[in-house]
């Protein structure tokens, strides 16, 4: 399910079947120009990634709208805000909440997070929409799906 009117109507009708939420968290920054290319390609690939996971498991997973944060900002404050999001989801009740990221900086703050952190090694590609990239992402998506199923 995505955060769209049509999907949410289905969600409200079959709430008991949908117990897992994914929050893609995406960094944003303009201060380090040399790394902007990396930041933007991360964002594009993470979006494709999240949509592909949602497509595979759409009947049980809600893809929450993206959470944006400053890439070199205060991660402790962000962790607190993320926990508010997680709390909101747990009261629905969602049983599993996953945070999806390419940013390894979150690994050090994993303990502060109430949700499961799914850190994936990001990769850089020339064209995020090329057939090769999409095939590569599909291969990884299968593994992530397998990982998520182990929590169910």
């Amino acid at each position, binding site marked *: 399910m995505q955060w769209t009117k049509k999907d949410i109507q289905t969600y409200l009708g*079959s709430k008991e*079947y949908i117990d897992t939420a994914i929050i893609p968290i995406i960094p944003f920054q303009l201060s380090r120009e040399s790394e902007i290319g990396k930041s933007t390609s991360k964002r594009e690939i993470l979006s494709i990634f999240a949509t592909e996971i949602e497509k*595979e*498991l759409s*009947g049980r997973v809600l893809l929450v709208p993206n959470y944006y944060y400053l890439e070199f900002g205060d991660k402790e404050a962000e962790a607190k805000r993320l926990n508010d999001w997680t709390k909101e989801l747990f009261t629905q009740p969602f049983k599993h909440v996953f945070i999806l990221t390419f940013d390894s900086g979150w690994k050090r703050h994993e303990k502060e997070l109430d949700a499961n952190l799914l850190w994936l090694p990001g990769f850089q590609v020339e064209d995020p929409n090329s057939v090769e990239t999409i095939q590569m992402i599909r291969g990884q998506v299968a593994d992530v799906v397998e990982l998520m*199923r182990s929590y169910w």
Partner: protein
Amino acid sequence: MSEEKQQVSRRQFLNYTLTGVGGFMAAGLLAPMLRMAIDPVLQPPSEGEFANVGLAVEDITTTPQRVDWQIDQVDGWYKSKPGKTAWVYKDDNGDIIALSPVCTHLGCVVSWEGSESHPNQFFCPCHDGRYTKDGVNVPGTPPLAPLALFEQKVENGMLYLGKAIPREGA
């Protein structure tokens, strides 16, 4: 002013002009309507909705295999290439069967023998929905309808798939 020299009378002249102008207006009104009425005939013959999925017919076995392909979709001004997936195999009569992988329960993607405890069945990872090889839902599992069946055709030994046609509940 002599009557003989007047080739066209004032009345005739007005009649001609009015007919001419009226004719143009009528033509202007009717032409677009006619164009619209016969529009389907004028469309260039297209591939229809069928897309080459990149699978040769001779490579299709009796074991379902997953094929992924992309279609060109034009939605108003927005052009996209959404990915499509099907499970393809040959049944006992040698006919090609192409099933949509979208679970009829809530839309997850099912996989062939996705669960070790249910061999020879399609399995939905989300809520343990199951389908037999022909795509019919197993009673007692969440799905209430069989998997949709793709329209298909074979050209030059390649498989072409079209729309997925939903089937009635079993």
